[in-house]
């Protein structure tokens, strides 16, 4: 039996609870195991980003809770939650969201610095990741000197750097051209295969959906379909 990484129980997010309640998420149950490459799809406003935010501890559910490796993160407060995110969850956002004043190397190193990892370990990991994403020659480039695809690859490397439990990616290919999107997907799939890294995407992009091992469809805050989970080994 595969290890469960994310366990969401009865998740609801209700806006305007006191007037006319709007369910951004409505009693969602979700289990994600280690090594999954999962896409969450659905039309705009279906609750994809909200679900991703809940799974990443960026937003608090109105009902239900999320367990990551057995830790109820919904119960964590303040710095406890921040530290949990820092040490367990990797994020890739839609609009690259690199720190503009830092170089590619410094961006990748950033989370490890927050974790106070030793310099030698950081250097080694950064070089390893830059090689994996094929950007050794861009080590000292700042985000504005990189293309959208390159920035997104650095963002993935940054998310991977501290070896998190899983990576949450909110529409990672949304702003990329088709070649860059394919390259990014290839890279993430490779990391999924080689490092058994768990990826969860929210996406509209059919290319991502086609490459995903598991596809969850959301509509009006509810899961309307969930394909059988498969890991790379099972393909």
């Amino acid at each position, binding site marked *: 039996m595969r290890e469960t990484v994310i366990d969401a129980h009865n998740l609801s997010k209700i806006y305007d609870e006191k007037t006319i309640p709007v369910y951004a998420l409505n009693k969602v149950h979700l289990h994600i195991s280690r090594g999954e490459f999962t896409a969450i799809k659905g039309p705009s406003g279906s609750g994809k*980003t909200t679900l991703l*935010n809940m799974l*990443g501890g*960026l*937003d608090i559910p109105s009902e239900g809770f999320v367990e990551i490796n057995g830790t109820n993160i919904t119960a964590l407060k*303040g*710095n406890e939650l*921040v*530290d949990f*995110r*820092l*040490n367990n969850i990797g*994020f890739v*956002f839609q*609009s690259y*969201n690199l*720190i*503009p*004043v*830092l170089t590619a190397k*410094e961006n990748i190193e*950033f*989370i490890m*610095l*927050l*974790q106070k990892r030793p310099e030698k370990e950081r250097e080694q990991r950064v070089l390893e990741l830059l090689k994996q994403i094929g950007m050794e020659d861009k080590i000292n480039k700042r985000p504005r000197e990189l293309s959208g695809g390159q920035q997104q690859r650095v963002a993935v490397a*940054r998310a991977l750097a501290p070896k998190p439990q899983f990576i949450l990616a909110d529409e990672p290919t949304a702003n990329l051209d088709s070649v860059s999107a394919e390259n990014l997907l290839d890279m993430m799939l490779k990391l999924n295969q080689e490092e058994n890294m768990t990826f969860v995407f929210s996406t509209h992009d059919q290319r991502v959906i086609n490459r995903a091992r598991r596809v969850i469809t959301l509509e009006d805050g509810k899961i309307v379909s969930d394909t059988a989970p498969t890991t790379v080994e099972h393909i």
Partner: protein
Amino acid sequence: MLTKIASRNIWRSRKRSLIIITAVSIGLWTGIFMMAFYNGMIEQRINSAISSELSHIQLHHPEFRKDYEIKYYLPEGRKMLEKIANKQEIKAVAGRVIIKGMIASASGSSGITINGVMPAEEQLLTNLKGKIIKGSYFNPKKENEILISEKLRKKLKLNLNKKTILTFQDREGNLASAAFRICAIYKTINGPYDDANVFVKITDVDSLAGIPKAINEIAVLLHSSKSVLEIQKNLSQQFPKSEIKNWMEISPELGLTVSVGDQMVYIFMGIILLALAFGIVNTMMMSVLERTREIGMLLALGMNKFKIFMMIILETFFLILAGCPIGILLAFATIGITNQTGINFSEFSEVYSSFGYSSIIYPTLTWNQFGNIVILIILTALFSALFPAKRALKLKPAESLKK
């Protein structure tokens, strides 16, 4: 890493950073210069008061200063003078006979203080000769000579070599009067002082006042202002029957001028700091609001709120650090130049003179004051950064990332 991010962040919006750096520079420059200007003005006023009017320490009969009555003189005054003159810390000492009286001419009369002085000693003490603009200093061979001020000369329509009448009460309370010939006209920077003081030789008035060979005031000038309290204490022990006062005690209004001026400078500084604070709050707030998404991303990645807070504070600190050297350099250059050349307000000399100030101001500043201003500016800037930093702390990652 925080330092690196903060220091690089300040150059993201060059125009905005330059505005705040300029504001800090101008604030510092104006603040330091104003302080130096005021210092120069007050220092000149005090120096002038000490060197021309009060000296550092004065000795009197304990009752004398209540009503300036002649009968309260220092019987042992001349011996006291000798003893004081022997002290190492003393630069100059002189005895005086101070009489409140009237000066009269054909055109009118005026209430004045008649300063019966020892010409040679007084010259060392107050450089009275140096203030003469017309005529010549006391001639030892001549009797009943008088030095009057230019203001008094105009007021009483007097002139050099003309006679004037001094009238006052002697030791017994009888009216005494004598004619004095004007040997010189003097002028100081202090209009009110000039209005109210005339100088005669002590030997010409002591007998007339009924206290021959006696004195009722001893004025002491020290080599250094720092030893005033020590020498005052020392003299008090040596002459316990006399009243011994330092210049601040003799002229409390001068102390008041200093403190009122201090308050004015602090009010002015307060306005500068307030403007600076508004500028910083505005700039840093814009910076935080523009970076809402970025700050949300940092929070999401695991940067805790304390680090976000420190990042904003550090950014402000670096902006100030960039502005400080420019402001300090400008201030030092301006003070350096004006300290040599002086700032000439001779067009307003009458106004300055009426308050006892020189119309040429030489700005000056102590390191202590300079340090205080710099610390004050840095504290204001950091304090101003608290508001935007607090705003950044309120951001929630999920909401911020949507922006």
